[in-house]
């Protein structure tokens, strides 16, 4: 089952999801009036798109409807899709495939978003594409995080570089880069401690890891992936902004999209911070981390749920 089906299926699990809402609005509204916009606004906010981005989308829609002389809700629906699609895609590199090899991915995010799990799945994804993958257990803070990543490395069948709990994460990353070089690894994926983004010293630690990567892995293709939980609300924006302060953020891995949460916040993040979504997690299985396809994402959002 492809992720599109999974996504549709999971969207179908809830009665009043955005899809239904928007669909209902489009199906039963025969004219484009204030009520139409208001309900649309509600539907977008209910999917965590956020007030600011919602207003931006609605304003753009209003303008386009006027400029293009759109008169039917059907056409307005197409226009809405295009607006969101434009936000998601414009000037963005949506591919997770590294520009060249070897590559190093640093994976960051706050506590509990599913970083370690996503790294396991990401390793599986890359391994299946024929890359030689190495994991670095850089979360030396959370109890048993190293064990958790180790279980994943065994499941996927890739090697892991680790030290003991409480050791310096920058040292782990240093070792990992050296190992990646000597073992001729294609892709190194580094776990980091889940941290609340407002914890200064932990962010400093991240900066230090970054410096190690810059210095030791200067010939590596480098990307930082931010893992976001689809159930997170507007705080995800703050998270992204804080991580941007200490590092480039090249892409988002959106997890837990198989629940009832719509993950609409990524539209807001694309709009305000210009960070593309690259992968999405749509289930618990090892292969449930999939490439993000904005067309299908938007299509799935507006697909009628039977």
């Amino acid at each position, binding site marked *: 089952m492809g992720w599109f089906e999974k996504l549709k299926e999971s969207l179908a699990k809830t009665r009043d999801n955005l899809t239904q809402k928007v669909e209902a609005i489009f199906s039963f509204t025969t004219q484009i009036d204030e009520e139409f916009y208001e309900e649309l606004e509600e539907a977008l*906010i209910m999917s965590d798109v956020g*007030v600011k981005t919602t207003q931006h989308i609605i304003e753009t829609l209003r303008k386009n409807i006027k400029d293009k002389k759109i008169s039917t809700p059907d056409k307005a629906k197409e226009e809405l899709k295009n607006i969101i699609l434009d936000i998601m895609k414009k000037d963005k590199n949506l591919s997770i495939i590294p520009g060249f090899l070897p590559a190093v991915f640093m994976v960051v995010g706050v506590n509990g978003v599913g970083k370690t799990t996503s790294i396991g799945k990401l390793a599986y994804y890359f391994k299946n594409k024929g890359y030689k993958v190495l994991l670095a257990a850089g979360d030396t803070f959370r109890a048993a995080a190293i064990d958790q990543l180790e279980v994943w490395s065994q499941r996927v069948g890739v090697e892991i570089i680790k030290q003991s709990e409480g050791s310096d994460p920058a040292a782990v990353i240093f070792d990992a880069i050296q190992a990646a070089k000597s073992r001729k690894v294609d892709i190194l994926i580094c776990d980091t401690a889940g941290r609340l983004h407002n914890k200064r010293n932990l962010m400093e630690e991240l900066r230090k890891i970054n410096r190690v990567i810059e210095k030791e892995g200067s010939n590596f293709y480098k990307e930082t992936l931010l893992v976001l939980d*689809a159930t997170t609300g507007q705080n995800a924006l703050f998270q992204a902004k804080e991580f941007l302060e200490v590092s480039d953020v090249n892409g988002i891995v959106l997890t*837990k999209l198989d629940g009832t949460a719509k993950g609409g916040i990524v539209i807001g993040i694309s709009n305000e911070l210009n960070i593309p979504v690259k992968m999405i997690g749509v289930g618990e299985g090892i292969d449930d981390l999939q490439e993000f396809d904005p067309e299908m994402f938007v299509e799935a959002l507006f697909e009628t749920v039977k």
Partner: protein
Amino acid sequence: MAFEGLTQKLQETFRKLRGKGKLTEKDVKEAMREVKLALLEADVNYKVVKDFVNSVTERAIGQEVMESLTPGQHVIKIVHEELVNLMGAKESKINISPKPPTVIMLVGLQGAGKTTMAAKLALHFKRNNKHPLLVAADVYRPAAIKQLQILGGQIDIPVFALGDKISPIDIAKASIEYAKKNARDIVIIDTAGRLHVDEDLMLELESIKKEVEPNEILLVVDAMTGQDAVNVAESFNQRLDITGVILTKLDGDTRGGAALSVKAITGKPIKFVGIGEKLSDLEIFYPDRMASRILGMGDILTLIEKAQQAIDEKKALEMQQKLEKQEFTLEDFLEQMQQMKKLGSLKDLIRMIPGIDVSKLNDIDFEENEREMVKIEAIIKSMTKEERRNPSIINSSRKKRIAKGSGTSIQDVNKLLNNFEQARKMIKQFSDIQKHMKKGKFKFPFFK
């Protein structure tokens, strides 16, 4: 601070209302539009916001403005009351079973922070002279059992685990027996986290519930959860009839609107909040405090009420103008002190002022200050009017006379003059804080 974002928003909103003489329907609606946006940005669920705004609007428009309050203050009062209503009227404690062990089951989504919270709760009970037992019933997430064991080790609390090959239902069952035999009076069961749409998980949780009949089923919710919080809370509540909610990760800059949503949708109380990464970072949830915090008003309503009773409005207004123009004299200082005395102790008053960090007040000896105030009064009363208005003319012979007249020493007089200078500085600091907070001139709330 948890709700600071929302706080600021609402304060900005109400600043617009302050200073207006009469509260019209238009004013209320305008303010409520801002309240609505602020709450939405804080991730309070759309429907909850709608209901909240409607009920506040209704009350605000329908009611006569209380004599002692300005219309703006009155709206704040209503918003505050409704927020308290929404979050539960009073704090809620853990139900301790008369027949030990008390069984607490933690449920929730992945990543909400159940395992850490289990350890925090255990430490909380240990400090209250209980003997908790942690139970590792999450057999799915890799290393979840080990995580609980490590945390249990850190706080020296036994962890009951049977590995990940035994069904969680059997683990839970066996743990109760173990607790009885080993005199553990609180059993905290850490269950697997999965999505609320996961039927298998829900069935498993239902079975555990049936088997161990927990005294508490607490839903652990990430304070950063967005609109979906209501779906999550509703699902868990429908299937398990939860007894309460624990809010985690409230120490981020999250506005924590999920707290409002979850409470509104389930009607179940929020019992604890997790506020940090350390295992000792756990707080009991006080709805009224939280509501005050949301409004960013300190306990401003009490302060308003007290002030209205004690302070002559006209005099207060004059005083405010003097403060702003920096024409504040010792004479005014004396008058201010006399008015302040009518209000109650200095400490209580300062605590009620918004924007004051209460924890920093511990450094101040208030009783000493109050004794000092009696002296100050005597000294100022021994000055001539000229001296009170223009302290700079007080030379050493004047000081000698004042000291004699007030039964104090020259040092005391010097001290007062310094104190006065300090008071002026303090006023400047207050206005700086206020400027920092909302870029406006500082106004004592009771001067309105």
